């Protein structure tokens, strides 16, 4: 969910700004934030637990809404609500850390690389660098909270997956994620053809590292292949790329319910959190059943593991996205094949060690 689309940074490659998502200036009120918790509790009564993932915009710029959600979730059944947050780590004061700890948030922290790499793109609207502030945030987070942290880096032209991966591994974080910037081909920062080839080779290397981790009985810090490998272990094809509209919903700052927070609200509005929860749940099921794979998916070797692609990203990236997904699926298969005869090791991907 997005409690605001506003951000305290003006990153040069921002997808959210580029997509023109949401109306600027709309901030979720504390009353509406509490209603979100109630609506999810009622509408998703059939699921065991709900993870509220705060996204944006920068969620730490709307602490009243965050506080209202954490407090409301606190009066529900223990374990009913979990929290996650994607943050740039630049707007956090004492209250933010208290809330992160109170909700035991899983934190996804955006940090691209060392200062010269990070600060080239991730700056405040008046042009100030942010790398030092992000490192201070990380240090405080690690000392003052028990929140697990995922470091998230953008791979872009001039900054490779291998470099981003190595940088993230040098930080005191639990999980890492480095992914290519999602921009239409030819945009500034988009990978050149040669860099894309290198990116695909780096993905293979990431797979080899996962294999080495599993051989050593360790859950890998880079878990990008985990769900596909586990899918291969379980067997069966993926019915859809994701749970959007059925097990996942997006909630905009004004309380609009969407299949995903990044899907254009003009294309797929399911309802509003103030309405009867059954309505947006039903609308989500209808939205999902109306989704059809693209014709090209039907002949794509990755289809059983891909499920037809991300409805938010494909319209922006098209074939480029498919190339990355196919490689991801190919590497997932290689990891699975390596352990086909000794599948116990693969359970480490689900934390079973």
């Amino acid at each position, binding site marked *: 969910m997005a409690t605001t689309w506003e951000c305290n940074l003006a990153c040069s490659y921002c*997808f959210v700004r580029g997509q023109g998502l949401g109306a600027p200036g709309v901030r979720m009120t504390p009353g509406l934030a509490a209603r979100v918790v109630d609506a999810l509790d009622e509408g998703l009564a059939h699921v065991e637990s709900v993870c509220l993932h705060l996204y944006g915009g920068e969620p730490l710029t709307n602490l009243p809404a965050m506080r209202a959600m954490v407090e409301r979730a606190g009066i529900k059944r223990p374990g009913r609500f979990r929290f996650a947050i994607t943050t740039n780590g630049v707007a956090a004061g004492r209250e933010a850390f208290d809330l992160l700890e109170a909700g035991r948030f899983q934190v996804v922290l955006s940090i691209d690389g060392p200062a010269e790499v990070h600060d080239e793109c991730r700056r405040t609207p008046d042009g100030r660098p942010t790398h030092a502030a992000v490192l201070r945030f990380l240090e405080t987070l690690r000392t003052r909270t028990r929140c697990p942290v995922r470091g998230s880096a953008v791979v872009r032209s001039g900054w490779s997956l291998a470099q981003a991966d190595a940088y993230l591994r040098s930080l005191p974080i639990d999980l890492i994620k480095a*992914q290519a910037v*999602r921009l239409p081909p030819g945009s500034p920062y988009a990978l050149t053809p040669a860099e894309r080839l290198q990116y695909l080779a780096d993905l293979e290397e990431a797979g080899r590292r996962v294999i080495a981790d599993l051989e050593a009985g360790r859950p890998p810090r880079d878990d990008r292949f*985990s*769900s596909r490998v586990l899918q291969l272990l*379980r067997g069966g094809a993926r019915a859809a*790329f*994701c749970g*959007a509209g059925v097990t996942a919903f997006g909630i905009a700052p004004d309380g609009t319910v969407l299949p995903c927070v990044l899907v254009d609200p003009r294309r797929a509005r399911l309802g509003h959190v103030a309405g009867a929860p059954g309505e947006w749940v039903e609308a989500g099921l209808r939205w999902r059943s109306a989704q059809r794979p693209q014709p090209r998916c039907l002949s794509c070797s990755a289809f059983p593991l891909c499920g037809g692609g991300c409805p938010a990203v494909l319209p922006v990236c098209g074939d480029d996205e498919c190339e990355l997904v196919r490689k991801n699926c190919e590497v997932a298969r290689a990891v699975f094949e390596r352990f086909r005869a000794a599948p116990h090791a693969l359970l480490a991907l689900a934390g079973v060690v």
Partner: protein
Amino acid sequence: MEKKSPAYTKRQKDLILRALTDVEFRRLLASDPLRALGKSSLTPEGRKQVELVLATVKEVEAKITNLADQLLCLNGPCGIC
């Protein structure tokens, strides 16, 4: 730090794998664990183990389904967040 996961024995891992890959066995383990395991009784500890196995399989299923929940949210679709 992340929540500490329980240590799993080889036997539990066998059960998790079987319940994950064999839907009929999973159903039987949930509805009639004695029959599923071919036993005449289960200690309270054994029952707890069965519960843990079933809960773990559920978590694995969620991890599989939520592939793109992760891509979209935890992993960020745009590679930005």
